[in-house]
């Protein structure tokens, strides 16, 4: 939102007060102040975290957009940059960190891995994208995304914030509770929201582990 819009909401200001007061809507000033001071959480997972650090450092410098302060504590952070591969061993902690962030909170999935598993998707310890568990606002493609791409993603996030309305904001509603159940590490990752699906298959149908050895005998032989 440009300053021009902020100061000219269509209401006439007396000339003697023209440089002293500004008339605007609450939505605009509220969104403007939030969007221009997004504090990311200092939270790095993998390769993308290095590019995130580079984006924060002098050459690219995302403090130009008000993201000056990276907070290691989730309580003080507005946006979580999920920068890297989300593994099954790590996802309980990520969900817990997300639950600890105060509203309004945003999630930016940085890179292919956080968006959908990326090159490691087939791995047995890899979650196919952080959006399987927590809602994602912005996806930034790349492996890793360049600092320019990350900056673009963050600017898109500020644009998204500017479209929000106080009257519709979910986090001010009465029964708002967006606590996400923390996944459990069992024989494999257990999503507490999917107990029925899991039981349906482990009790009734053939489970996915068949125990059979379907391996080409030729491959097994060593010369």
């Amino acid at each position: 939102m440009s300053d021009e819009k902020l100061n000219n909401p269509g209401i006439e200001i007396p000339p003697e007060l023209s440089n002293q007061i500004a008339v605007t809507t609450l939505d605009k000033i509220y969104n403007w102040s939030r969007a221009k001071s997004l504090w990311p959480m200092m939270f790095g997972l993998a390769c993308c975290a290095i590019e995130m650090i580079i984006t924060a450092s002098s050459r690219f410098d995302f403090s130009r957009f008000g993201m000056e302060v990276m907070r290691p504590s989730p309580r003080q952070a507005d946006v979580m940059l999920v920068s890297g591969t989300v593994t099954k061993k790590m996802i309980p902690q990520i969900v817990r960190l997300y639950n600890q962030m105060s509203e309004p909170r945003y999630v930016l999935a940085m890179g292919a891995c956080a968006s959908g598993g990326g090159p490691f998707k087939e791995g047995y310890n890899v979650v196919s994208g952080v959006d399987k568990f927590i809602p994602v606002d912005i996806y930034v493609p790349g492996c890793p995304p360049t600092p320019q791409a990350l900056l673009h993603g963050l600017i898109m996030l500020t644009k998204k914030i500017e479209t929000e309305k106080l009257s519709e904001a979910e986090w001010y509603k009465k029964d708002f509770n967006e606590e996400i159940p923390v996944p459990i590490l069992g024989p494999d990752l257990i999503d507490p929201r999917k107990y029925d699906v899991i039981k349906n298959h482990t009790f009734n149908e053939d489970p996915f582990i068949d125990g059979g050895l379907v391996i080409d005998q030729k491959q097994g032989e060593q010369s």
Partner: protein
Amino acid sequence: MSEEILVSTLPEFDVLYSDFVKKDERNGYEGFIVEPSSLKEFALSARDRWGYDYLSSVTAVDYFPDQFEVVYHIYRSLGGGALVIKVQIPREDPKVDSLYAIYPGSEFQEREVYDMFGIVFTDHPDLRRILMWEGFEGWPLRKDWKEPYYEEEFKPYASRWPNGVAERIEDKNPFGDNVQYPKGFNPETWIPSGEDALYMGLKRPDKLDGVDSEYVVVNLGPQHPSTHGVFRMAALIDGENVVDLKPVMGYLHRNHEKLGERNTFLQIMPFTDRLDYINSMSNNFGYALAVEKLMGIKPPERAEYIRVIMAELSRIQSHFVAAGFLLNDLGAFFTPSLYALKERELILEVFEAVSGSRMMCNYFRFGGVVRDLPEGLFETIRQLAFNRLPRKIDEIDEFLTGNEIVTTRCIGVGVLTADQAIALSTTGPILRASGVPYDIRRADPYSIYDRFDFDVVVRYHGDIFDRYLVRIEEMRQSVKIIQQALTQMPEGPIFEGKSQYQVKVPAGESYGRVEGPRGELGYYVVSNGQANPWRYHVRSPSFINLTSLREMCKNEKIADVIAILGATDIVLGEVDR
């Protein structure tokens, strides 16, 4: 050592110990096969009689359906080639003696083998899963274990090539996600195994000082600003002093080795970039060496020089980052890092020019490099090597080395003696800061490093400060190597033979190792003549250097643990793989 030993020769162990050692005579294999019952005896005499005191790598191969084979690579800390020993054990109820008592550096590697293969190491002090969590179902690297998104044994998968169809792999899994559970599993009654084994494993010595205080366990990480990623340490503290400490890892375990076995040889190359993501060129280098050894090819001259230049540039930027981030950990938050990252950006621009990517270069191929230096880049590198980098290294040195924060917090902290450093299998700057002049570029030269004049940097106190100084001085030596390489570099082809998607790799095994910025980076590749490796293992320096973390942190203050970890300079992609 009782008798004269010529360092570079390998004794004929099969003749000397003919009762329980025989030569590995399979085609393309090297080393000796030792009877499982005599492993400890043999290792002891290899260490004490023959000077093989440095256990570099422990791994296992699943020769499905015959047997497991545990493979050890042992070196002399004086230099020279490897002693490769193998122990063959049955696939049913696999057990082998732990070498922890002889080589303490095997601790984490044996845990990793247990985690991945289910091979039990008897007499291991703390045999738990290390990369996966306790309670995980199955042993992932066994050939008869299938991941939830299993499609086929080997790539390229029929569903994708030659006629690819667009489909979501989630739809093929009954749970619609990357998970699988054993039959009859009920998630509602599942009780996670918890972390008692970890906390009880911390050694609580009897109180001697008479002060009535309690031991407290402090968890640092996995989300902690000082741990350089998703790394966790469980520290047992008495007041402010660390009594015992255990690293907990696996939060970034990306199944590199399982994916590697599914991929073709060339497809692994971009994955190696993502191991030590600060330093992709050296990762490429090690893997290319290992496969080239199997294929029996050598890159042309110009490619060798380009490789060396890139690997050394990579080392410089990695050490810049290490020096800058060490200061972060000491409390000089981010200002020194900005100076370091500024120089790193210049080197990344060189990488981007040659490979198209800043960080994930994927630049090396078997038999050369993927493309020649673009026009004008030679001059850029020349400017960097002869002008800018030497000045800037001096600048960092001048700003930081005499700095009060650095001297007070680093000198005499986190000491590791030379004997400990060798026994705990540390590599790279940590080993050299403890007074062991072991640098693979000298000790066991690869590529064309024997042509260059450079010093192996060594310091003798073994504390954080010496590790930092070793890194600073190594940057200067790297600049020196680049300068020589630039002067000697010939014109000519950059690739041997014709480039192809599927390389033919003869059956056999090979171990390629390079001196990466963090130490010995080794790749153990077993091929059975097919398009995919049968076994692909990464001996990662960051992971194995962490074995010594407990020794370094004992009796230090809890605040110094952060600095010690910073000086260990780990990269989590490589620790967890």
